[in-house]
């Protein structure tokens, strides 16, 4: 067991992979197998080609695999040909959109936002496709994965969820709504994938704890505003996309250790 999970990414793959398998078996709007194959295949291939291109000494496809699983769970397109484009955009963004040795965007989030902007009539995200029973299991597994995977950097998931909860529960209190409403809003599978597998990306978040806290707070506030003020359904993804641009500034202000994946 320990050796399998010695690299935290293995646990991430296990969690996302199980969720995907579960959805494929149980959900009417799960991705078709050809979509899964296209996303995973193209992601791994792009990862391989990009690693060769930039001359990495060791070819490691694991993070590309994680990205493709996130895309399988969230990214929807009306035409099949968009999926490989999304995978290429996601993975290559890691290699080519960089600032000071870090990539700027979480790759899956980048592909979702790029898809929504470039093909507004062909791409969408279905955030409501998870039952609440799945949610709890996924919440626990996701939390475990994020704690093990990004070590102390996993705090950003927690920061974000706390800020997000504060905002939606605060809104409910202000409106006089019963707590069942924010609780229901919180029970979203898309929110968990976002919190545990996107915003937590150790390569795109600030190096210091204070930086990460500010990052999470800004993302939550922006997403909340877009969602409730402007009725943007994909608010979380746009918010993360926008706030990621600020990471270099946050790193300059608040210094912290640079993240490296532990080697297996």
């Amino acid at each position, binding site marked *: 067991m320990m050796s399998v999970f010695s690299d935290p990414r293995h646990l991430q793959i296990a969690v996302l992979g199980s969720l995907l398998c579960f959805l494929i078996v149980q959900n009417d709007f799960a991705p078709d197998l050809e979509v899964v194959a296209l996303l995973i295949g193209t992601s791994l291939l792009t990862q391989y080609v990009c690693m060769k291109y930039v001359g990495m000494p060791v070819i490691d496809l694991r993070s590309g695999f994680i990205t493709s699983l996130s895309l399988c769970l969230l990214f929807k*397109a*009306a035409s099949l040909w968009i999926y490989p484009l999304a995978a290429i955009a996601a993975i290559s963004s890691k290699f080519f959109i960089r600032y000071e040795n870090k990539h700027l965007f979480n790759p899956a989030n980048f592909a979702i936002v790029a898809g929504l902007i470039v093909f507004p009539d062909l791409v*969408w995200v279905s955030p409501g*496709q998870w039952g609440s029973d799945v949610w709890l299991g996924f919440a626990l597994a996701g939390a475990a994965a994020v704690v093990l995977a990004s070590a102390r950097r996993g705090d950003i998931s927690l920061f974000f969820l706390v800020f997000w909860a504060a905002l939606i529960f605060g809104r409910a209190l*202000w409106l006089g709504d019963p707590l069942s*409403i924010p609780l229901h809003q919180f029970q979203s599978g898309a929110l968990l994938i976002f919190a545990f597998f996107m915003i937590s990306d150790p390569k795109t978040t600030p190096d210091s704890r204070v930086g990460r806290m500010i990052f999470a707070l800004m993302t939550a506030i922006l997403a909340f505003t877009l969602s409730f003020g402007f009725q943007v359904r994909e608010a979380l993804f746009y918010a993360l996309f926008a706030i990621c641009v600020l990471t270099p500034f946050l790193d300059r202000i608040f210094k912290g250790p640079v993240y490296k994946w532990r080697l297996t």
Partner: protein
Amino acid sequence: MRFLFVFAAVLFLTAPAHAFCGFYVAKADADLFNEASKVVLARHEERTVITMANDYKGDVSEFAIVIPVPTTVKKSQVNIASSKVIDHLDAYSAPRLVEYYDENPCKMAARERFMAAPMAAMSDAVGVPGQASAEALGVTIEESYTVGEYDILILSAEQSDGLLKWLNQEGYKLPKGAKSVLKSYIKQDMKFFVAKVNLKEFDKSGYTYLRPISVAYEHEKFMLPIRLGTLNAKGPQDLILMTITKNGRVEPVNYRTVKIPTGEDIPLFVKDEFGEFYKAMFEQQAKEEDYEAVFLEYAWDMAWCDPCAADPVPPEDLRRLGAWWIEDQGGGPDRPTPRPMPGVAPMIAPAPAPVNAFITRMHVRYTGESFPEDLILQTTDDRENFQGRYVLRHPWTGGAECYAASEYYKSLPERFEREAKTLANLTGWDIGDIRKKMGSGGQPFDIKPVIDDRPWWEQIWQDDQQ
């Protein structure tokens, strides 16, 4: 005391004390889904038209609806719709029964016939009141007018207390818990569309029933307020939401969508009780999802023409229901060329004109616990077609004599058993009863081959020798 019926999509303010007939499925009983509301929502960009069908059977003087709307609505934004158009859309998009007749197994072929299963749903709205101390209570009457047989007020309020008090003063009985829901809508800057029947106009109109109301508005909010409707419901309620969009399927972003089981072969006797079947099946499916899911019953790209509905809703009716992007006369740049449906035989009836519209039909059975929040909707770009469709296969009953025929007859009991199990699974009905009914309904498990024992020359010349 006047009762307030707040329409479903919107809100039910009182317990529906009157006989609502729900939705009729084929020859189903009138009480099928008898607390259902039927709403049509047409939307593209931010232009929205919501139409609430009305099957109210009680005293019209007691009828009233209160609907939270995101923006104020002027007289010209309200229209009386034709119930025929809504019933047509309802019947067109309803889950349906399809019959196939096995051909002589010695010469396999296929023929198909359709039976649409119209499912009428229903909805209701609630009315409203006068003027008086509105100002003192912090209630502003933004608009006040009469359209068709309805007196309509658009209210905005500063405080839920004031609004509630004012509505009470005007004789409307609101259910417990309404105050906090009203408060929430007021804080979200929603207005209230309140309608009651103008008896004079109603008598003048000559109609014996209340016609549906359409409300047009332009706002980024794409949602269906259901919270008021859950307040006084005694049990789960049904909502049939039909949407017309340009891009594709509509789905809630805050609830799970589940496709209703479809394409299943079921026993022949269901033909006479399709309504009961559908009702039982829907209940079974809703229960399995803990009443937490929105069921997709129909999703169809109208540009493809529906081969299964011989009587599609004409473009001008879709336009009347709010599909403003559809060209007035048909024709024009927005009109796509029809594409054939893969795997479906072309229809013989005159091909319906293709329209650039996508119809989604969702069916929700909800309670206040399982659906605490309003339906927050989005239009996806998914144009995949789907319909709830159940298949009856009539076995060949003519004579047949060949090797294939004996194989065919041998296979029938197994096929019947499969259908029985499917039906039991879908509906939760007792399989013993199902088998019994099948036996007397043309599907006996001990079916015997019908041997054509006429001499072969009579068989080959049977059509000529009359």
